[in-house]
């Protein structure tokens, strides 16, 4: 276990909420070598440990909250942790990330990760204070907002520097897209918050006093200097610091990529009201960084006047602006900030929330919602106050909120009337703020991402601007390249903005300096393919085949009515066939071939794949 002294802590803490037993286990060195850490390790562990077909909100689901070998160091962009679990939205694999200071403090507390299983009898929070691990009563915290839970836990543990990741009422009420929030940073997508809630786990609190050991300190210091120089010299760095991710709003809108009115169009005349420039001018008071990050893209916003006065939130970020703003025809950054604050406090994913409300607004406009479903509510596009009300109703599972809390896939099943055609999701996960008809690579990404319609598993948008947004040419290659890069990034674990200075070579150089054990670019590529294909195998074991790699009918058949991509749809089928071919998956079925499994050292998955195919055949007969 010698190399485990460097980079990794070498320990994983397994917490069984049912029995109350907490024990530190050795990190399996072979797994760390084959899967790096974070997402890679998580996908291997969940494949190994989770029986097929478990209820995501049942006692048998597990949470793998993991860091990687680079977290806790001074390496730029190394603030993120990854959580892997079975998603209550997609009933299959999901991974979610969050920044802030949580990952570093988990390492400093002495652990590479936490495995949380079982279900507590009453509301509980986990306190990890180095080797002292305790499960504490959280009955008095049940019902509190995420920031209240954080401050009360700090208060009762008498330490203002305790890190807390908590759910709000939405997670407690098992809203399928509930988030876990750590100091206003969200592990948002896929419903991790609902899994916490189902386990009666209100929060995880950490005290990290330790350190990370570096195998080659001189090399590490040299690389750090180079990394800082590169981040500073990157041409987009000044704009990213000035405007954060919202700096992209005007640009995506100009290209028809910003979703408008539940993805029914792409021109939004009020876009200036939600642009990064407007946001900076009107509400941003302070720049914020995650731990060890030299690129402070976080924006602390305070709305000082007007109807949304008193709003304070870190953000909103690009994705939240698209989904809670233009997608609901709301063109006031103050209103978006308020909606974002509500989502954070109640513990909701802003992307799925904005998407679900846009969907409800369209259902209302089409007369598909009956009185029993909406009561006196009139969910109209552009109505910010109405949107706030629906956000609260979702978190409380009240009225229309009860339906929307299920996510748009299930909501469309309840509402009916053909609403599934414009329920904008893949596999049950709501689409993010990129209109796929205006950037068709993003469409292929949504269709094939392991966790559903996710933008953050290898976004292609920026490169598509160079090679043609609406052309399917070279898109399968590009999607795979980016998906693979994200597999590695999520396993190190680094932020996606590591692109502002760190290329793969530098990441691998850092890996070697930190752990003392390097891998070549070719090995890294193989690890990335291994991770992606294993996630696929997990999903196949849960009954997801090619039919699940599907976009909503709106994206496939309804030509975009306006903007630069006017008239376009996503030519998914032709891209998909090529995509499967390059991945080494069967072109007809999307199932990894036995040769591919062998090449990636995934023979252990072959039995499950064969069984899944056999059972699918039986069902179709």
């Amino acid at each position, binding site marked *: 276990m010698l190399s485990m002294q460097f980079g990794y802590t070498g320990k994983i803490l397994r917490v069984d909420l049912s029995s109350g037993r907490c024990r530190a286990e050795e990190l399996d060195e072979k797994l760390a070598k084959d899967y790096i850490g974070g997402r890679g390790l998580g996908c291997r562990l969940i494949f190994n440990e989770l029986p097929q077909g478990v209820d995501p909100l049942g006692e048998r689901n597990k949470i793998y909250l993991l860091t990687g070998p680079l977290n806790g*160091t*001074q390496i730029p962009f190394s603030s993120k942790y990854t959580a892997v679990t079975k998603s209550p939205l997609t009933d299959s694999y999901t991974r979610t990330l969050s920044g802030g200071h949580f990952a570093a403090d988990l390492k400093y507390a002495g652990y590479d990760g936490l495995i949380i299983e079982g279900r507590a009898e009453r509301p509980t929070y986990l306190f990890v204070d180095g080797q002292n691990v305790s499960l504490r009563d959280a009955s008095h915290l049940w019902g509190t907002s995420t920031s209240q839970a954080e401050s009360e836990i700090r208060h009762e543990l008498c330490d203002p520097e305790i890190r807390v990741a908590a759910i709000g009422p939405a997670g407690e009420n098992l809203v399928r897209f509930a988030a876990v929030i750590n100091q206003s940073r969200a592990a948002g997508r896929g419903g991790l918050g609902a899994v916490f809630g189902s386990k009666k786990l209100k929060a995880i609190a950490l005290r990290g006093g*330790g*350190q990370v050991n570096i195998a080659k300190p001189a090399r590490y210091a040299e690389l750090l200097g180079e990394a800082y120089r590169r981040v500073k010299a990157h041409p987009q760095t000044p704009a990213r610091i000035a405007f954060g991710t919202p700096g992209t709003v005007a640009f995506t809108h100009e290209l028809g990529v910003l979703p408008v009115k539940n993805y029914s169009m792409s021109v939004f005349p009020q876009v200036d009201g939600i642009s990064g420039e407007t946001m900076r001018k009107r509400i941003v008071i*302070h720049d914020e960084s995650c731990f060890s990050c030299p690129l*402070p893209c976080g924006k602390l916003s*305070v709305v000082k006047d007007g109807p949304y006065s008193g709003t304070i939130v870190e953000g909103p970020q690009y994705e939240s602006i698209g989904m809670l703003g233009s997608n609901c025809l709301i063109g006031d950054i103050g209103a978006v900030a308020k909606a974002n604050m509500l989502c954070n406090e109640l513990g909701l994913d802003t992307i799925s929330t904005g998407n679900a409300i846009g969907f409800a607004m369209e259902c209302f406009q089409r007369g598909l919602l009956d009185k029993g479903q909406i009561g006196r509510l009139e969910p109209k596009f552009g109505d910010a106050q109405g949107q706030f009300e629906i956000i609260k109703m979702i978190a409380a599972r009240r009225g229309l909120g009860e339906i929307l809390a299920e996510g748009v896939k299930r909501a469309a099943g309840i509402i009916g009337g053909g609403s599934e055609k414009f329920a904008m999701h893949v596999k049950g996960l709501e689409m993010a703020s990129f209109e796929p008809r205006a950037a068709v690579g993003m469409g292929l990404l949504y269709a094939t991402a392991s966790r559903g319609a996710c933008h953050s598993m290898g976004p292609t948008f920026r490169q598509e601007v160079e090679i043609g947004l609406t052309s399917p040419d070279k898109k399968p290659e590009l999607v795979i390249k980016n998906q693979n890069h994200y597999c590695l990034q999520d396993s190190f674990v680094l932020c996606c903005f590591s692109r502002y200075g760190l290329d793969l070579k530098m990441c691998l150089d850092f890996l070697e300096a930190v752990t003392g054990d390097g891998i070549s670019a070719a090995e890294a590529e193989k690890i990335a393919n291994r991770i992606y294909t294993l996630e696929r195998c997990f999903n196949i074991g849960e009954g997801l085949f090619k039919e699940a790699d599907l976009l909503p009918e709106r994206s496939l058949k309804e030509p975009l009515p306006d903007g630069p991509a006017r008239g376009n749809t996503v030519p998914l089928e032709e891209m998909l066939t090529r995509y499967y071919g390059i991945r080494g998956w069967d072109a007809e079925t999307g199932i990894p071939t036995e040769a591919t499994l062998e090449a990636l050292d995934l023979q252990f998955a072959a039995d499950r794949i064969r069984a899944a195919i056999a059972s699918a055949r039986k069902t179709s007969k």
Partner: protein
Amino acid sequence: MIRLKVDSIKCAGCKICQLSCSFHHEGSVGIKMARMRVEINRSSALNVEAARIDLPIVCEQCQDAPCAEVCPVGAFVLDGGLGIYLLDEGTCTGCGVCIDACPHRVLIMHPGRNVPVKCDLCAGEPRCAKNCPTEALKTTS
């Protein structure tokens, strides 16, 4: 004379300064052994002025140096070149009265060596300021 200058309104709370300090002095990748700290007051941002949301707290190198003043064994020695007090660890008994005397609560006890650690301006090239990405910490002369 070299000194550290703090412009807290620019601080984004990344703690690169603490990481740099720990690494330079202790070879440790962590933040608890740093000779300065950043306080993060984000959750109460509405009630504090913007300049205190992320607040770096550094050794002010006090002229009247309460740490040196209260030391019972005279372990703090004035460095002529830098014009600051440095701790002579050989003389120090680890009693810790200097830690209580520090008006900025920036002196800390080293967890391994049982002596206080004090900012020495990295012998004239403070790593915290060198690596600060937002210029919230600067070196002035």
